[in-house]
């Protein structure tokens, strides 16, 4: 149990996928203008990333490794993730139209989110077993969501404050992201 707990803390705070690994920066900047958009994106990522982690894990250990085709990992994973996102979209549209319309365009956007592929590959690299994969994928996504929501909160405040013209928009966004990353460095010692 403690093992999983540590893994969660590690994935959410210490090795935050956004602020420590710098994966998925594109949606981080793109969907953080408004809190409502940010939470939508966060939910979508948690949903997809957990699924993708599990499936790619299966593809790796039951297809690629037995056939000794590990070098096909990247391309195979991308294929699987793209298909998965499509599948999720189709199923959601039918079974949970409310959730589907709330997630809107974020769902298809995740196909190109490098955080998803990143986590899938880390799962393999770290030699996680199935349970660890589930926990790590989920926790990484939560970390992504946490960072995104915090960031959106900050950016909403920016909109209300006086800021030199040159710093407005993406510029202040990047600077803030950097400062947030520094802050998250503070969690380094947590893992021991």
């Amino acid at each position, binding site marked *: 149990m403690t093992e999983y707990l540590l893994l969660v803390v590690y994935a959410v705070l210490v090795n935050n996928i956004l602020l420590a690994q710098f994966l998925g920066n594109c949606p981080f900047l793109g969907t953080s203008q408004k809190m409502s958009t940010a939470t939508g994106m966060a939910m979508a990522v948690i949903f997809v990333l957990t699924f993708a982690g599990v499936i790619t894990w299966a*593809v790796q250990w039951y*297809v*690629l490794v037995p056939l000794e*085709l590990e070098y*096909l990992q990247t391309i195979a994973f991308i294929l*699987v993730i793209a*298909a998965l996102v499509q599948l999720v979209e189709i199923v959601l549209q039918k079974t949970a139209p409310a959730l589907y319309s709330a997630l809107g365009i974020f769902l298809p956007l995740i196909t190109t989110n490098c955080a998803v592929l990143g986590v899938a590959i880390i799962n393999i690299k770290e030699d996680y077993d199935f349970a660890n994969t589930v926990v790590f994928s989920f926790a990484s996504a939560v970390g992504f969501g946490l960072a995104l929501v915090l960031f959106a909160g900050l950016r909403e405040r920016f909109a*209300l*404050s006086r800021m030199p013209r040159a710093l407005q928009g993406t510029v202040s966004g990047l600077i803030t992201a950097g400062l947030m990353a520094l802050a998250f460095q503070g969690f380094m010692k947590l893992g021991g």
Partner: protein
Amino acid sequence: MEVLAAALVIGGIGTIAAIGLGVAAKVFAVYIDPKVIEVGEVLPGANCGGCGYTGCAAAATAVVKGKVGANVCVVGGQECAEAVAGIMGLSAEEGEVGIAELGCKYSVTTAHLLFDYDGIEDCRAAALVNGGGKVCSMGCLGFGTCISACQFGALYRGADGLPAVDKERCTACGACERICPKGIIRVQTPSRKFTHVQTDDDCVAPCQATCPAQIDIPAYIAAIGRGDYEKAVCIIKESNPFPLVCGRVCPHVCESVCRRNDIDEPVNINHLKRFAADFEMNSGKRFLPQVLPPNGKRVAIIGAGPGGLTCAYYLARMGYQIKVFESMPKPGGMLLYGIPEYRLPKKTLDWEIGGILELGVELECDKKLGVDFTIEDLYEQGYDAIFLAVGAWDSRRLGVPGEQDFPQVASGTEFLIKRGLGEETPVGRDVIIVGGGNTAMDAARTSWRLGAENVYLLYRRSRKEMPANDIEVDEGEHEGIKYHFLAAPTKLIGTGGKLDAMEFLKMELGEPDASGRRRPVPIEGSESNIQADNVFSAIGQSPDLTCLDAEGVASKLGRTKWNSIEAADGTMQTDVSNIFSGGDAWRGAATAVEAIRDGRFAARSINLLLTGEELTLPSNWYARAPKLPGIDEGIKIDKSERARMIELSVDDRRMNFNEVELGITEEMAKKESERCLQCGEVCYQGYREKAS
């Protein structure tokens, strides 16, 4: 070998994924309108969300649902709009053109303030501090956050400090509406306006708040002041398609709350309305509004009075196919068959109704619900909703001995309807009218015009309680009507089927009753007689709902305790979800402007129902106008004289039915429009300048 294995694996995964998706698409198939896909394909696919929808697919859905026009996309430009329009089968211009409009008239430098705000110069920041510095909750905070939000440079700061709209540049993208923390700037389309129900969030002048039809009075007065009479008429018709009629017969409650009452006399709001409407009629050219392309839905309207025709008018503008069924030979309801010519010439009424029918509204006269057809028939013919506006055509009887014995005793409406039908209605020398409402006054003044020498009007309360329009009572007095207040009939006396006289009792005012008016009580032994050749009773009308006595759907419609049709105020929905009612049929005998309001509200509800939206009202809408502050202490505004209606002299009115009120001149209208203070909810012209 190795290459083959790789190809097989990737190909295999691909195939499995493809099959899986294929199966899923079949199993979880959701019906998507092919039009949505088509529209989605011509949108740029940038998913920028600039249009306010979550991506292009969502925007395409909205277009197909008819929620936005073909020009939805803010980046695609004209080309894209035309492509969308092509698919939807309408031209880009055929959709409604929206334009940003500010709902606040006074900037922070001229408005009533609570405190001076000097924080961050952004409306959203200012709104965080107690909702901003203005006294009212809906005032513009003046930092122009909307101006910087507009990507098209369509907003600029006007001379008065308020954001102003460059109509050429505004694309109706709604960015300003979304960013304004107070919802003051809104993208308005005609249909968004005429389906609007006033709420506490709207800044409205006292007159507009009180007008049952919720006409934007200061706006049309300002348009008249600019000489833009066409605009004035259009503004009125966004809430009331009967300006010629209302400009003549409306009791104009708006004037009784006009802020100018605190200075001198109210603005002559109603006659300004009539002036603008007369201008349209006299110009001979109709200012026809835009009618949206047919949406394929049909609505049946029962009764071609002001209520029914108003509902028809607004639904027709939204693209509904409307058919009005009327039991009488001509449309107009009580406007035609009740109100006499000298107040509302038939020609004028015809012209106004013509403007409604010209929008493509179908009218079938001599067709009576309950006799010629039933509600079930309408359903069978494919009508999606029904509006019942059958008016209040049943008259209350006097209930005194002798009432049934003489042909010279009739109800005021019977008398007036006969005249309306063009039948002979001779009256004798002495005519008595019983009642104090508009019907009583009309019967009295009509009798006088037909040659009666003594016209008596008996009313059981005093003059101040008379429900008739004040002007009617005054004019009746000029014409020599003899009023007997605090009197009630007790007996009709005559010989051999010929009426001779009416006996009545004197009354005095006792305790206030439920309506707050003092109840008249008879004085014992005070009987006296008046000679009478004719007696017309006009003591109340109620709806004649025998048309709904049928089995089936009609029997499901509830009745109020006044025997009118039960419906929910605001939505106007009856107990049957796609049947609506309003006007006199719902209120009991009331006024034209109230019927018009009900007709418009019903049109709003029918549109919501038939587009599959939830049929609700904004939570803070008001059925009764809030009391708004008057002119502040210590503020001096120059007095000026109110424009007086030009009238036919009393001598010229006898023995004819020529219109009594002749209108006001253009010069008078211009001068009168300048008297208007252009009020907001608390602000008005001259507040700051004069105060300092």
